[in-house]
């Protein structure tokens, strides 16, 4: 993790909007989620994260000075206890990052060989979980929009949501649903001042990627910390726009590439 004083002045300015902002991140103990917990905490945000494994949650919360919440976003009965703890400990919420993802069947297999149960797990984690958690937190996000802090929901997408890759059926279809749901939220909640964005961080050296493509050479993949800096820069831009009631397009696919060039 790079700490603030190594960053250029331009980078600091880009991220300053995140100081003191209340952020919740799902899937916060590995891959991009963990990198985002570290990056956003380094930016001075108040961070709560959610993950399933109690010991890892406790360890990462202690190491990063953030709030760990144990829960599974794929389980309906966990959603309100998770929302209660996020809102109770942060006192409200300005940014939600729906990052937790399920690959579906592992190893990957053709859709025709995919068990319904594996597909259901992907849908529960990648679509229903973000839907339920976002809905439970909308009241708090709308309050942040009204008081001028700004409110952003950022959903982590994938190019598998747009392009059809053989073997990625459950994951691709569920991420496509998440992507489209994000677009609809973006339309419906613009009048309430809540910004929605769909971000494809690209291929990263993460446990999920290793699960999907165990033979991939990690050297050809982005490090999660680098992707987290890009996502954080995107968040800072969007929060600033939201504060100024300026609406940005929902899809960060093309724009993020420009941000990557600027951050690196």
């Amino acid at each position, binding site marked *: 993790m790079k700490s603030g004083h190594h960053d250029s002045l331009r980078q600091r300015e880009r991220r300053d909007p995140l100081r003191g902002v209340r952020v919740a991140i799902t899937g916060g103990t590995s891959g991009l989620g963990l990198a985002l917990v570290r990056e956003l905490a380094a930016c001075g945000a108040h961070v709560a994260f959610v993950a399933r494994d109690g010991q890892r949650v406790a360890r990462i919360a202690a190491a990063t000075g953030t709030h760990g919440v144990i829960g599974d976003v794929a389980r309906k009965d966990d959603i309100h206890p998770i929302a209660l703890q996020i*809102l109770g400990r942060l006192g409200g919420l300005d940014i939600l990052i729906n990052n937790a993802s399920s690959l579906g069947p592992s190893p990957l297999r053709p859709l025709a060989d995919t068990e319904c149960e594996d597909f259901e797990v992907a849908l529960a984690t990648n679509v229903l979980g973000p839907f339920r958690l976002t809905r439970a937190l909308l*009241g708090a996000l*709308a309050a942040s929009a*009204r008081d001028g802090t700004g409110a952003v929901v950022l959903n982590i997408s994938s190019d598998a949501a747009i392009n059809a890759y053989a073997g990625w059926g459950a994951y691709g279809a569920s991420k496509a649903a998440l992507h489209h749901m994000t677009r609809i939220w973006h339309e419906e909640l613009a009048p309430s001042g809540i910004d929605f964005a769909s971000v494809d961080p690209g291929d990263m050296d993460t446990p999920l990627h290793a699960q999907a493509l165990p033979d991939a050479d990690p050297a050809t993949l982005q490090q999660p910390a680098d992707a987290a800096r890009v996502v954080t820069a995107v968040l800072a831009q969007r929060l600033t726009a939201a504060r100024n009631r300026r609406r940005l397009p929902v899809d960060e696919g093309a724009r993020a590439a420009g941000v990557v060039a600027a951050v690196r």
Partner: protein
Amino acid sequence: MIAAHQRIPDAKLLVIDADGSLVTAPRTALVDFLRRGDLVVANDAATLPASLRGVHQPSGAIVEVRLAGWRARDLRDPRHWTAIVFGDGDFRMRTEDRPLPPALDRGDRLQLGPLDAIVTDTLGHPRLVALTLKGSVEHVWAGIARHGRPIQYAHVPQPLALWDAWTPLAGPPVAFEPPSAGFAVDWQLQDTMRNHGIDLVTLTHAAGISSTGDAALDARLPFPEPYVIPSATARAVRRAKLRGGRIVAIGTSVVRALEHAGAPGRVRAGMNVADQRITAATALRVVDMIVSGTHEPGTSHHDLLRAFAGDAAMGAMNATLDAGGFRTHEFGDSVLIARQRVASNAEYSRHSGVDRGMRSAYLVGRAPG
């Protein structure tokens, strides 16, 4: 469970105009009784799962603890409470019939699922104590989240899930019971209000419990209730007053907060504790209309409604609620009461009447425009 979509879809609204006349409408038509420039204020408190079952360690007796008042100044610290303790039984038994808890003394320990509690004080009634939940803030929030259940009453027989108790606008979890008038303010209604030039803002008020089943304790309700008024809300109230718009409170808790923070024409932003009782004798300074459930006569909520309407209007309202088969629980029908026109506050009431044309539309049974 009462899933959100199972809440009565055909909820009714009884409108009591500033001159005391009554109109019945579908609740979805609420916006037809408001005017461009009015300001709607809702309570965005989420509801705590404030009912905790457990064991009174000294006696081994089963108890139900209902968290009922904040004792910490920081509402992110869930460890220090005023609480009401019942003996064995659950919400299916009417609170009036619930047994007393075992005798509670300072220093008694209670095991409430994963939470370890200690009675730090007794408060002059066998059911009422100050309670501290032990451990870190993180541990206590997690314990409340996993073990707590929403407080509920015998009139709703199915166990409520936490999502049943959260209104669409629910944010900070600080209320002990749902600010239930807010169930009406869904995202569709927010869009409709926006399209009619009616602004919506929120405050956060730690709405307390509505009933204990014990006359002596009920007489002490409501307990002091912390609230936060965002500066954006205070500004919106001031602007609405300046333009002659009416302040429409969604629920009694909003009236408690706004009137506590109120001076003529404005309210103070920030955090405070509402500790006043609002009754027929209270001169309202800020709020012009209230949307509320249909509270039973004799409760503190019903007393508060009497600040808006006199005995004659309240009597007519209660008769109409009975005759019209209005559902009177917190997931039921609603009333909209305009502050009654009386000589003593005529200057406030100039703007408070329901639109004539709209009222006649409902009187002759036309569909809402």
